[in-house]
C-alpha cells in the first residue's frame, strides 16, 4: 500500500512543476470515419492524435492547410469544432503470451469477456521488416497436417504461402486445420514427446468477416484444444473500415513479439481481399487519388510491407520466425484480377483451391498444377522428402492421362499403372476437415503407396485402408511411428519394419 502512495506522490510532484506543451488543431468536418483537422502543424505521419472526447485517431494525410485522420473508436463522439491534439506516439497494440487464448479487436482490447489482458509489452502496428543481415533461409517445416500440402507444397517457418480460391472452397478450413495441427504438436512438445521441438504460436486475423464465421472458427479451435496457443484478432464486417485496415498490422505486431523473443509464430490473414477493400474505402474518403479498380496507388505497398514482416531470423537475432498464411478470395477463379496478382507476386508460393475439385469430392480441393511453394523441399523433413519426391509429377501425369483415358478403353499396361497410381494418390489426399494427420503417419502411408502396397486395394476402399492402416500403426506399431519421429528419415532398418507391418496389416484387411 505504501508503495502505491509513494508512486502517486511522485506523479503528483512531477505534475506540479510542469507546463505541458502540445500541438492542437480544430476538427473542420467529420464523416465516414474520417476527420479533417485544421492546425496540427507539428503532426507526423501515422501519429496518434487525441480528440477532446478521448477518442483517438490516426493522421494519414498531411496536407498544406489540413490533416486527414481516421477515427478509431466511436466516430459519433467526434464533432465539428472539437479540439484534437498530437500525442507523439504511434498506434500500438499489447503483445506477449498473455494474448494467447484470447479474442481481441484491432487495438488489442478483449472481446471475449475474459477480463483485461495483462500484456508485458506493446508494439507499434507499423514496423520496418527485418533486413537482409538479420534473415536466414527457411529450413524448418510448418506441419499443417494436411497431407497434400505437407507432401507437395510444403510450408516452412518464415515463409509466406498464399491460400487462394473462390468462395466456399475451404480456404479458411486449411488455415484452421494448420492451427489445430500446431496445437497438437505444441501439446506433444510440452509433454516432451518430441525432440528439439519449437512451439509454434498462432494468430488468426479475421478481416471483414461475419461475426458468425469468427464465432464458428473460435468454437472449432476451442473444441480441438487449439485456443491455448492461439490469438484471434477480429475486425468483423460491422467494424469500421479503419479498424479492418489496421487489423492485419496488429496481428503482425503480435507475431513479431514472438519472433523477437526467439519463438515461432504463424499468422493467418483471413482475408486480404476484404482488407484491400477496406483500405480502398479509407483512401477514397480521405480523397486520395484512385487507380485501377478504384484501389489507391499504394495498395501493393500495403500488402508487401505487411507480408515482408514475416521472416526467419538468424540465431544471433534470436532465431525466431513469423510465418504468414494470407488468404485471397477470387471471383469465378480469376487469379489475374488486381489484388490476387499483387499478392501472388509478393508471397513465396500459393495453394490454389478449385471449385470443380471441391464439388467432385476432392477435399481439400487443392489444384496440384497451380499450387507451388518456392521454398520447396527445404521445408520438409527427410522422411517426407523420401516418399513425396515424385508425387507431384505422378499426379501431373495422371491428370494429363485421365483426360485421354475417358475416350479409349484400350490402354497399355504402363498407362494403366500410372492411372491407377494417380487415382489412389487422389484418394489418399482426401481428408476430412479439422482432422490433421501427424507427419509420421503421413510418411508411413505415403511409403506404403510408393512401394505398391495400395495397388491391389480397390480405389473406393483406399480411404478405409488408409484410416485402418493409421489406426493399426498407432495402436500396434507405435515403435515404428516413434522412430520416424526421432530419426526424421526412413532408413533401411525402418523400411524392413514398415514392410513387415504392412504385410501383417494387409493380411487382415478386407
Amino acid at each position, binding site marked *: 500500500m505504501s508503495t502505491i502512495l509513494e508512486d502517486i506522490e511522485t*506523479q503528483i510532484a512531477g505534475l506540479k512543476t510542469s*507546463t*505541458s*506543451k502540445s500541438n492542437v488543431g480544430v476538427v473542420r468536418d467529420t464523416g465516414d470515419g474520417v476527420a479533417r483537422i485544421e492546425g496540427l502543424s507539428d503532426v507526423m505521419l501515422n501519429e496518434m492524435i487525441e480528440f477532446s472526447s478521448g477518442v483517438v485517431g490516426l493522421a494519414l494525410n498531411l496536407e498544406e*492547410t489540413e490533416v486527414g485522420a481516421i477515427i478509431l473508436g466511436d466516430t459519433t463522439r467526434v464533432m465539428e469544432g472539437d479540439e484534437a491534439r498530437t500525442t507523439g506516439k504511434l498506434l500500438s497494440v499489447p503483445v506477449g503470451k498473455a494474448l494467447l487464448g484470447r479474442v481481441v479487436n484491432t487495438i488489442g482490447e478483449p472481446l471475449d469477456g475474459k477480463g483485461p489482458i495483462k500484456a508485458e509489452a506493446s508494439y507499434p502496428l507499423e514496423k520496418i521488416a527485418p533486413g537482409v543481415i538479420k534473415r536466414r533461409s527457411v529450413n524448418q517445416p510448418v506441419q499443417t497436417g494436411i497431407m497434400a500440402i505437407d507432401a507437395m507444397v510444403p510450408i516452412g517457418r518464415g515463409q509466406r504461402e498464399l491460400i487462394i480460391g473462390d468462395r466456399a472452397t475451404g480456404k479458411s478450413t486449411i488455415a484452421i486445420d494448420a492451427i489445430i495441427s500446431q496445437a497438437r504438436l505444441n501439446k506433444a512438445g510440452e509433454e516432451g514427446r518430441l525432440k528439439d521441438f519449437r512451439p509454434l504460436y498462432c494468430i488468426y486475423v479475421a478481416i471483414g468477416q461475419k461475426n458468425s464465421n469468427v464465432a464458428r472458427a473460435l468454437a472449432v479451435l476451442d473444441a480441438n484444444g487449439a485456443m491455448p496457443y492461439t490469438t484471434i484478432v477480429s475486425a468483423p464486417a460491422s467494424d469500421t473500415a479503419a479498424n479492418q485496415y489496421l487489423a492485419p498490422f496488429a496481428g503482425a505486431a503480435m507475431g513479431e513479439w514472438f519472433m523477437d523473443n526467439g519463438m515461432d509464430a504463424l499468422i493467418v490473414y483471413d482475408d486480404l481481399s476484404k482488407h484491400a477493400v477496406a483500405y480502398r474505402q479509407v483512401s477514397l474518403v480521405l480523397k486520395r487519388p484512385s487507380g485501377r479498380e478504384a484501389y489507391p496507388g499504394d495498395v501493393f505497398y500495403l500488402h508487401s510491407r505487411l507480408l515482408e514482416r514475416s521472416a526467419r531470423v538468424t540465431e544471433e537475432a534470436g532465431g525466431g520466425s513469423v510465418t504468414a498464411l494470407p488468404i485471397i478470395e477470387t471471383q469465378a477463379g480469376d487469379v489475374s484480377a488486381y489484388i490476387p496478382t499483387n499478392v501472388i507476386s509478393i508471397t513465396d508460393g500459393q495453394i490454389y483451391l478449385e471449385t470443380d475439385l471441391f464439388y467432385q469430392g476432392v477435399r481439400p480441393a487443392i489444384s496440384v498444377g497451380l499450387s507451388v511453394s518456392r521454398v520447396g523441399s527445404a521445408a520438409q523433413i527427410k522422411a517426407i522428402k523420401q516418399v513425396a519426391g515424385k508425387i507431384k509429377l505422378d499426379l501431373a501425369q495422371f491428370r494429363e492421362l485421365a483426360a485421354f483415358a475417358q475416350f479409349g478403353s484400350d490402354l497399355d499396361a504402363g498407362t494403366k499403372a500410372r492411372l491407377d497410381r494417380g487415382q489412389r494418390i487422389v484418394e489418399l489426399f482426401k481428408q476430412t476437415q479439422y482432422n490433421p494427420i501427424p507427419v509420421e503417419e503421413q510418411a508411413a502411408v505415403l511409403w506404403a503407396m510408393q512401394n505398391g502396397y495400395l495397388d491391389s486395394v480397390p480405389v473406393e476402399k483406399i480411404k478405409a485402408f488408409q484410416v485402418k492402416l493409421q489406426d493399426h500403426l498407432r495402436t500396434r506399431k507405435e515403435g515404428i511411428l516413434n522412430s520416424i519421429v526421432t530419426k526424421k528419415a526412413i532408413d533401411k532398418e525402418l523400411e524392413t519394419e514398415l514392410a513387415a507391418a504392412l504385410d501383417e496389416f494387409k493380411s487382415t484387411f478386407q
Partner: protein
Amino acid sequence: MKVNKEVRQLSRQLLRASFTDGQLDGGRVTSLVKSLIEKKPRNYIGVLDAYKRLLRLEVEKRSATIESATELNAEASAKIVDNLKRKYGPDLATEFVVNPALLGGMRIRVGSDVWDSSVRNRLQRLQEQL
C-alpha cells in the same frame, strides 16, 4: 467543400502576394480583393472563399490567446505579451480571455501550439496516469 485546382492555385497566389517583408499587409489584401471583385474572373467567389480561409489560418498563426482562470493584472499581462513577442516576433496579436473552467493557472495558444499549465489540465493528466 470541393475546391478545384484552379481556385486553389489562384487563392494561394493571392496569399503569396499579400505579404510585404514577410508580414501580412492589410492594404495589399484590400486592394487585391477589390481588384478581384472588379475583374470578376471565373469562379471568383470560390477564390475569395478559399483566400479568406487561407488568410484566417495565417492570422491564427500570428495571434495568441491567453486564457486564465481569473483576470490578470497589468504587470503580469505585459510580461506575458513581452515574452511571447520575443519568441514569435513583434507582429503577434494577443487576446486575453477569462475562463473560470481552467480552475487555476493559464493556457496560452499560439497558432497550433498550446502551453497549458492550468489546474484542469494537470488534473486530467493525473487522471490519465492513475
